[in-house]
Every structure is written in C-alpha cells, then in structure tokens.
C-alpha cells in the first residue's frame, strides 16, 4: 500500500496503542496539536489523554519519566519533538536509560522507545537543523535506528517495542511527507540489519535516514555515466550491521559514506574506520565521506543546500574514489 512516511508512523502508533495496553505515547504536543509533524494526529481522540499524553516543555523530566515508566512495567513511546531539544534530556539518556541494566547487575529493564525528528533541509536554521543521531549511536546500553522509508517507518516501531532495551528512532524531518510502498508484513529484515536499496558493483554508497534518497538520486545520475553504485541503507546505527557493510565493500572495493552530521566526529568516521579495519586490503581507494559542512546550518536555502550533503557531492565523491589514476598508481 502506498502511504506517506507520516501516515506509516501513524499506522504504527495506532496499532501499537491498540495492541498493548502498556503502550502509551507522551511528548510535547503529541495530543491536541496532533504532533509537531502530525504523526500522531487523531490519536488523542481515539485513545484518550491517558495514552496520548501532552507534556509541558520539560524534556529532561518527560524523557526521564519515560524511563521510569518503562521500569514500572509500561511500554512508553516518548516523542521528543526534535533531536535539537533532546540535548536537554541527554543526561537521562546517557546516565540512566543506558546504564540501568548493567549498573544494577542485570536487575532492571528499560523497554523504552524514544522517537524524534532529526536533520536539516527545511530552512529552520542553526538551532533546529542538527543531525546528532551519531552521538546516540556512541552510547552502549541503547539501540538506535533510522527508518529511511515509509515501510520502515511503519515496521520499525513495533519491532522497537519488542526490544527489552531502550530504542531511539530517528525520523528525518524531510521524510514525513514522502510517499512510499508499505508492505503488509515487516518483511525479512531484522530491526538491526542494513538493507541494500540498490544493487551495484563499482562502489558502495552508505547512507541512512534522509540521506538514502540523496544517495539513490546520485546513483541514478552515476548510472548514466556507466557507474553502478550500490546503495546501502544502514537502518540501524547501533548496532551497525558490519557484515552487510563489509560484504558489499568487499565486492565493490570502494566506498563512500554519506552522513548529514558535521564531518568531524560524525558517524561516517566510525563507518569508514570499520571498513578500513575490516576490508583494508580489499579497498582500492580510501573510503570517502560526504557530510555536512562544519557550520551552524544557516537559514537561506542556497546556503543550507550548500551546507548539507547533496546528490552532486555524492557523485563527485564517487568519481573521486573511482579515479583510476590515483588508485592504480598506489597499487603499483
């Protein structure tokens, strides 16, 4: 069935609230307003204010309350409006959600799902355009996924709710209105597996979330030049699906990582490092990275477009790693 990413999320939320009385949704403006991105529109009317719970502007307290409610036997879904505001709750994530099971010697469980929007592209400037999911992916004790398709938006949520540990779902803000095919079933891919979105043989282009579409657009362009790029959608950022990544790179011998985070210290570095560690002698060129410029994302469209990864930049990076001169020279 075709539906938007937003509708896919709403379908998933509706199903989750219907299926399990322990599930409830909580966050700023998830109820009366219908969700800042309208993902939860209509749910308050359907499930009532106990299960679709508007919160005050208190990110630390309501994320912490989500952790506490999970400890208390519920299956909370906490919506943090965007990753930008989630910084206010990061202490609760890093110091409580991520530590409680291990630190208690295995006694405690935090089956919490946190959803939030991430990423730029909507001209909402420096304080509303961060892509910080890479930070979350650094933290042991939590899981991090990023649905890039409507199908994954539909099916990652129920899978996340089955996890006994905290799962953070990053929804790229540009994806909500995107339409896609949503299957009746979750499909064969487990929650934490990467997906090959387009097979290829010349280069592996690795992306997640809002960058997957850009990678696919770049691959289309490259195909017209005779370059067959394989596009890999990470889907899960913690854990990373090393096996799928390395298998692809070993076939293509070249890789480009696309990441909307600022380049220095972004998740792209981890992926590039793992590729080098795992497939160094099969690489014909250093792994290239296409990331955001290291700048607070500016408001005007031309500057924002320049600051964020774009298909053209991905194409250029692919051409760079394919430059036979450089690669051949070195292998000689």
């Amino acid at each position: 069935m075709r539906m938007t990413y937003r509708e896919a999320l709403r379908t998933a939320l509706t199903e989750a609230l219907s299926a399990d009385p322990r599930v409830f949704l909580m966050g700023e403006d998830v109820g009366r307003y219908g969700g800042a991105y309208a993902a939860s529109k209509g749910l308050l009317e359907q499930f009532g204010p106990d299960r679709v719970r508007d919160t005050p502007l208190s990110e630390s307290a309501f994320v912490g309350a989500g952790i506490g409610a999970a400890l208390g036997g519920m299956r909370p879904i906490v919506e943090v409006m965007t990753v930008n505001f989630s910084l206010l709750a990061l202490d609760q994530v890093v110091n409580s959600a991520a530590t409680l099971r291990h630190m208690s010697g295995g006694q405690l469980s935090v089956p919490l799902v946190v959803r939030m929007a991430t990423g730029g592209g909507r001209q909402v400037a420096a304080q509303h355009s961060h892509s910080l999911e890479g930070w979350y992916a650094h933290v042991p004790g939590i899981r991090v996924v990023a649905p890039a398709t409507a199908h994954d938006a539909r099916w990652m949520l129920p899978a996340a709710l089955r996890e006994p540990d905290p799962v953070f779902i990053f929804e790229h803000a540009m994806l909500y209105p995107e339409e896609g095919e949503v299957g009746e079933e979750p499909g064969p891919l487990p929650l934490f597996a990467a997906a090959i979105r387009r097979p290829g043989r010349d280069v592996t282009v690795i992306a997640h979330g809002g960058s997957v579409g850009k990678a696919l657009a770049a691959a289309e362009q490259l195909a017209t030049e005779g370059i067959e790029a394989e596009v890999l959608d990470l889907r899960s950022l913690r854990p990373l699906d090393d096996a799928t990544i390395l298998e692809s790179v070993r076939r293509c011998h070249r890789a480009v990582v696309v990441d909307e985070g600022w380049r220095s210290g972004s998740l792209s570095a981890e992926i590039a490092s793992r590729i080098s560690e795992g497939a160094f002698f099969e690489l014909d060129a250093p792994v290239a990275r296409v990331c955001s410029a290291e700048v607070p994302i500016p408001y005007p469209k031309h500057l924002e477009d320049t600051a964020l990864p774009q298909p053209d930049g991905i194409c250029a990076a692919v051409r760079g790693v394919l430059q036979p001169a450089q690669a051949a020279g070195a292998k000689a």
Partner: protein
Amino acid sequence: MATREAPPLPKTPAASGAIDAATARSWLGQMLLIRRFEEKAAELYSAGKIRGFLHLSIGEEAVSVAAIAALTEADNIVSTYREHGHALARGLPPGAVMAELYGKANGASRGRGGSMHIFDVGRRFYGGNAIVAGGLPLAVGLALADRLRPRPAITACFFGDGAVAEGEFHESLNLASLWKLPVLFLCENNYYAMGTALDRHQAETDISLKGGAYRVPSVAVDGMDVMATASAVRAAAEQVRSGAGPFLLECRTYRFRAHSMYDPELYRSKEEVEQWKRRDPIALFRARLEGGGILAAAAIEALDREARAVTDQAVAFAEAGEWEPVADLLKDVYARELPCG
C-alpha cells in the same frame, strides 16, 4: 488528567495613568508597525519569499512596545523566536528585520538566522533564540557581566508561558536572585505553548506566583493594555535598576494567529480567539486615545498609513538585498582562521 479551570481573561486595572500625545503617538505607531509588518510577513510567507519557521506576535504588540519603552539604550534585551515585535520596538531598522526574514545579506544577522535569530549588537539586542527558555541563562550572564564590570544597566529577558516549565526557568531565577542580578524576567503568557494550553502544562497556572520560590518579586499585568503594561514594566525596571535584584513580570496576552505557519490550530476554538480579539491591544489603545481626546482619528489613520509605508519600504529593502555568497558559508564560525587542522 484532571481538567482545571479555563484560562482567566486578564483584568484591566482601574487606571493606568495618563499619557501625553507624543508618547501615545510613539507607542501606537510602534504597535501598528509591528502589526502591519507581521501581516505583510504572513503574506510573504504564502508567496514563498519567507521560509522556515515564522512566528507572529500579532495580538501581543502591547507587551513588546510597553516593555521596551521602559528600557534605556544601555540595557540588554534577550528575546525568543517570536521576536519581530521586540526587534522593531527596539528600533532595529524594519528593512534589516524584513531582509533577515528573507535571508538576505542585508538582514540584521546577514540573513543567516531568519525570523528566529535576529541580532543587533549595537542596540544590545541579543537575539533571537529558538530553544525555548534557552535565553534565560544568557540574560543572567549578561546581567552578571554588567554587575562585575560594573556597568549600570539591566537585562530584559522575554520568554513565553511554555518556557516556564523548562528547568532553565527555575535555575535562572534562582541564580539571578541568589546573586541579586539586574534581570527583568518578562513572561509573555499567551496561554499556549504551541498547542498546549497553560492549564495543561502548568500545575500552577498563575505564573506570577512562581517568583516566590526564589524570593523574586513578581506581578501579573494585563498585557493587552499597553498603558497598564508600560507602568508595570516601568515600576519593575526601576526596582531592578535600583539593585534590588531580579523581577518577574507576567504579561497576560494572546496570540491571534497560529503558533507558526505550520500550525492547523486544532487545539483552540474560533470562539476563544474571537473573544480575545475583542481585547485587541491596538483597538483598545486606539479607542482610549480617541475617547480621551489624546489623538484624533485622522492622526491615528496617518500613523497606520505610515506603518504600512514603512513596511513597504522594508519589503523593498529586503527585495533589493543580495544573497550572501556561498563562498562565505564558513565565515564567522570562528573569529579567526586556524593556525592548523
């Protein structure tokens, strides 16, 4: 979730004093400018000239004008993402503000910030903050700097009712009071944080009662009454200026428009909005000025025409502006080029 009482309409105090014609003209002119400027901005948004988030303060003009009237040029202002009114009342050139909304290089922040991030360091207008309650600690710091240098000035810090729920409200009021810093905390209570009504985000809906927890004197005022608000701000500012420490002034007001241009306004009724519109701060002030014989209808109409003309000039200024060159994208991330790496 228990249902609590509906938000009370603010009471207009019996008398908010007299006003001379020059002041009346200035205040009404500013309120009209804000109104016309924002009406135009909404149009320009629909026309695609302005993008991203645009938060209008239509309905709340009295607070901007009254609050800033009580400040001197030496005072600092810390604002929010709903800050066109503050910026214009502070005297930022309307063209620079409009150009900022366009994202043009002749905008107040060189176009980089847009509607939510208007700065003017010369006018001590410290922005423009799109993190709710994010400005409060900055205001405390600005006041601390003034105390330490020392520099005789106060810092006025605007924030909404929604910001009151954030931990930073609490931490900042405590810090300012503990250190007796000259901060005037100005809460623009418009009864909604996005779609969440005051009584659905605050256990205690009377914000002016919250100063007590920090020994911060606090008062609520009818923010639809520019004269009442002005005298309340004046009194509060004087107290802060005297060295008595911070003050919390709650201005009860209402936004007539949606939260932002994305907002379908599912959370409130047309009737509620209409009811508040009967207390439109511009109409109220106008009626009082006309009724009291302070300004004639014709003079008021002239002010309105001027507001429209200034707005049009601002649009022309913005339209004529250049885009910042892409090559300058990385300029001013840091003050200087790196010696390495």
